[in-house]
């Protein structure tokens, strides 16, 4: 879409060396266009979340993650770099799948990152909080209760609060990990609308399980299968004229249903569990620790 990609991975390889060695990403090279929304899709366990998190090195909080290859960010690199990690993560923000309020007020949830990075006066901070909350269409709902704890909001509101929190540190890129999967349809739609409006200003890369969502929102689609890149294309070509056989299979097999797979709800531990544990659909954090 645009001439220079905002982010470009080069032969990215992520291996988890826990009890078993699991290759989550096996040499993925892909471009992410600037000011566009790229959807990363693929079945569970294909390394979607790993790809997303490796773009700003968030997967590093898990022990035993080894990485090779490089991520280019403008004319900078994400891995082999002198730029300190917090600065990279400020510029490449991340919104997790589960709506996660920080244990503080609504106001401070938004101001949190900004306070860390900059020396804002009280008025500047007030403005910033308002601007960010307006950008995610949450301001009208929370205007008169900014001092309430973030956790007092509904999950849909919390997810928009998380987006606002990310925006407050003026990132260039937003990484969104299935940000609507924990939400009811109405809240999900609101979050989608927010993403739609944000992509004019930001480069958005989102993981999704929903093909419909990818169709609705994405400009580009990246399709991963078992840690390998199958196809990366603009959304129209991807859905209407897929190049790879596997993509054709995938789209025809799942295109009709909203969700790719029932077990996709498994969420982001996909890199480490290949046996799907039914009971832990919700929060596989234990595996991730």
């Amino acid at each position: 879409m645009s001439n220079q990609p905002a982010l470009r991975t080069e032969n990215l390889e992520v291996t988890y060396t826990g009890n078993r060695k699991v290759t989550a990403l096996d040499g993925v090279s892909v471009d992410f266009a600037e000011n566009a929304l790229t959807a990363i899709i693929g079945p569970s366990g294909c390394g979607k979340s790993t790809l997303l998190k490796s773009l700003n090195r968030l997967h590093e909080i898990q022990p035993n993650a080894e990485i090779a290859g490089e991520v280019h960010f403008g004319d900078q690199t994400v891995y082999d770099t002198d730029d300190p990690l917090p600065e990279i993560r400020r510029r490449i923000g991340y919104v997790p799948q589960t709506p996660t309020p920080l244990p503080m007020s609504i106001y401070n949830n938004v101001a949190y990152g900004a306070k860390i990075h900059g020396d804002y006066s009280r008025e500047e901070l007030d403005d910033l909080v308002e601007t960010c909350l307006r950008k995610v269409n949450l301001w009208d709902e929370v205007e008169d209760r900014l001092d309430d704890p973030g956790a007092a909001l509904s999950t849909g509101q919390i997810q928009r609060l998380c987006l606002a929190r990310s925006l407050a540190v003026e990132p260039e890129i937003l990484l969104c990990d299935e940000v609507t999967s924990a939400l009811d349809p109405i809240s999900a739609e609101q979050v989608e609308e927010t993403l739609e409006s944000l992509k004019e200003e930001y480069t958005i890369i989102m993981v999704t399980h929903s093909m419909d969502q990818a169709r609705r929102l994405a400009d580009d689609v990246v399709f991963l299968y078992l840690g390998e890149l199958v196809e990366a294309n603009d959304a129209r070509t991807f859905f209407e004229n897929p190049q790879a056989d596997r993509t054709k299979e995938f789209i025809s097999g799942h295109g009709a249903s909203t969700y790719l797979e029932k077990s996709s709800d498994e969420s982001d531990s996909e890199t480490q569990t290949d046996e799907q544990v039914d009971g832990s659909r919700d929060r596989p954090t234990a595996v991730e620790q």
Partner: protein
Amino acid sequence: MSSTTDHGAGTDGNPGTPPSTDDARSDRLEWRLTIERLSSYWLLGAGLFAIALFGLIVLTLVQQSIPIVSEHSLLEMVTSSNWDPAQEEFGFLPAIVGTIYVTVLSMAMGTPIAILAAIYIAEYAEGRTKMIVSSFIDVLAAIPSVIFGLVGLIVVVPFVGDYLAPALGAHSIGLGIVTVSLVMAIIVTPFMISLSVESLEALPDELRESSLGVGATKWETIRSVLLRAAGPGIFSAILLGFGRVFGATIVPAMLIGGQTAIPDSPFDAGETLPTLIVNDFGELMSLPLTQSALILVGLMLLVIVWLFNFGAMLVRRRLKRRWQY
């Protein structure tokens, strides 16, 4: 798609399960429901038993301490430092002062170490190091207190008597409040570490990712997000630690030096509420009023420890509701 919600669990006569007839199935259902009803009574009984036990203990203590309370005013006993059962003088003040000394000193030493160590284990240590460190902490927490008492006698008593007290310009025979506090801090810290690590590790990774994802450093994440989210758990760990030091018996009995006057300095020998009971235990039978006095001490201990636990629970619940972690 494949999720079988098991309401009714096969009792509603699925087609395709021929072996048992409807009659047999309904007999079986009858029996299963009977068991179900009985089991809930059983469990209720077990639960009530625990409550009844607690109630009986409290009742016994209250009833047994009535004689002393009816002869001496509670306020007078709590503020008097004269303990002489033969003269019917029952002043609890030295023991109360000693208990407060020991509790405050050991918690002041143990709490910061516990929190820092918990942060290290939960957030920094990885792989083998983490496994080794945390298993040693668990082992420490499981060592019987009497062993700490013995080691304290051999190591901590001379250390306090010969080095620590002189270094601080005080005099000590080695046995005393500081010695007990040191040893109690060592005992209670692993316990607080374990509980605090648990509450830190129970936090969802999304919380860390959220904070790191806006460019916070690890330390900023810990300080402003994780400690606060794990706050209820850590706070109740500390209060439970308080309760443990407060009710500790064997280590103070071995190391405090048994003195029934109010200590002038923390390096002095002294007594605590539990050691008061233990030391005068032998006289229980001969002097009924003393028995009653000691039981009153026990009642005070029980009530205070219970308050600590109850307070821990209340605070945890309140904070949890506020931040929902």
